[in-house]
Each structure stands twice: as C-alpha cells, then as structure tokens.
C-alpha cells in the first residue's frame, strides 16, 4: 500500500531552525498506488498534487493552514479538505465490497485527511 506501511513521522524541529507555528504537524504517508478504481485514482491525484514533491499533499496543506495564523485569503485548503473528505466518505459508503484492494487505500487517505482536519477517523463496522 505504501512504501513504509503507512507509518507516519512526526516533524522534529532542529535546534537552530527558526520558530514557526506549523512545526508540530505530521507528514502524510507516501502516495499510494490505486490499482482498480479510476475515480479513486483521480482523487489520489487531487490529494497528492500530481506533480508535487514530498510534503505537498492536501492533508499537509490543511495542517499548514491550521497551524499558521497569517493566511493568504482565508483557509482555502481547509474548505477543500472538508469537501474532499465528504467525497471520500461517499466513495467508501457506496462501495460495499470490503475485499476491494483499493478500499484500504481510501481509508488511509480518509484518515490522513481527517487527522489533518482534527476530526474523527473512519472505522469499519
């Protein structure tokens, strides 16, 4: 699913680095590879910014906005994150096939974004 099994690293601020508000946020897991579902693949590419470098996911941008005071024209990525989370929830609720190889990926994405938005993560019934 991910190269490090979905483990996350907490950011560690170096002793001499400048003090910035967002230093405590957690980085997103590496970009997952979706095998079956084209719609989910599109969503992954929205959340992982298809041409992005490491540390540039939608969840990372949400964490950055929530961790900073000064904003450029509002918390735009928080709004995007909230709506993309609803899209993911819909995807998960509509697909009852729990054996799909892409389902754990959707849950990983959901939980990373929910963690960034500081709301409850997805739990399978």
């Amino acid at each position, binding site marked *: 699913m991910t190269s490090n099994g979905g483990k996350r*690293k907490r*950011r*560690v*601020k*170096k002793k001499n*680095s*400048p003090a*910035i508000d*967002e*230093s405590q946020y957690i*980085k997103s897991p590496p970009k997952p590879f979706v095998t079956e579902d084209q*719609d989910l693949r*599109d*969503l992954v*590419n*929205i959340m992982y*910014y*298809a*041409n*992005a470098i*490491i*540390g*540039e996911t939608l969840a990372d*941008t949400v964490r*950055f906005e929530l961790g*900073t005071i000064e904003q*450029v*024209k*509002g918390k*735009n*990525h928080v*709004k*995007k994150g909230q*709506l*993309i989370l*609803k*899209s*993911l929830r*819909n*995807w998960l609720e*509509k697909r009852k096939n729990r054996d799909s190889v892409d389902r754990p990926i959707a849950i990983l994405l959901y939980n990373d974004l929910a963690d960034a938005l500081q709301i409850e993560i997805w739990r399978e019934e």
Partner: protein
Amino acid sequence: MAQVKQITFENAAAQLIEHVPEYKAIYDQKREAFGEESQYVIFGLPFVQFLREVVQHKAANDTLLKRAFFFIEQCANTDDEDILALIRTGFLEDLIKSGTDEETFVPYMGAKTKSLLAEIKVWWAKFAEANEKNDLPR
C-alpha cells in the same frame, strides 16, 4: 456565451455543465462516484485533464475554451468566499500543480481569474518557504 444565472457554491458544478456540456459525461461519473458535494473533484484535476486534451486541438476547440474560462471568470467575479476558494484551490491549484503548462491557458483567462491564480501562487510560495525552513523529514 450562455447567460450566467446567479452562481452559488451549490449550483456551480451544474452551471459549469451548462457552459461546457462536453464535460458532462465526466461530471456524471464523478457525481455518481463521490456524491452531490463533489465540487472540488468536478472543478479539479478531471476538469484540468479535460481541458488539457481539448487544448491539444486548440483551433477546433477555441470556442469551448472561451466558454469554459468565461464561466470561470464569472465565478471569480463573485464575492462568495466558498466559490472563490473553489476556483483558487479546486481549479487553479490543480491546474498549476498537475504539471500543466498554465501559459497555454492564460490567454483564455479573465482579469479576476489571473488575479486568483497569482494569489494561489503566493500561497504556494509561502508553503514552500515554510517547508524549507522546517527541514521536513524525508
């Protein structure tokens, strides 16, 4: 150009299809997959990819591109922050972060769309600067 009704965040995606009916098949597919509140998917990467294909045959699709960016400009000219956020981080961000040569599309953009594009670039510059200072673990 089709007349633009009052744009709200809720009807923005439906209005996009009134202006760009050629995008309807993808719109229907994404709404089926992600539900009613999938504006950020519909205005996002799938729409950018659609425009990238269209612009490859620019001469034949010139009016389509004009229609699409005319509607985006109408959205950009509202004072509804939800719509402005959708254009900034839904559409324009996916345009610049997907490896698309944005200069191809700039001639079709209105003044306010260009202004929102500049704003999201400023945001990404700040984000990149913070990332660099924070020395992210790799």
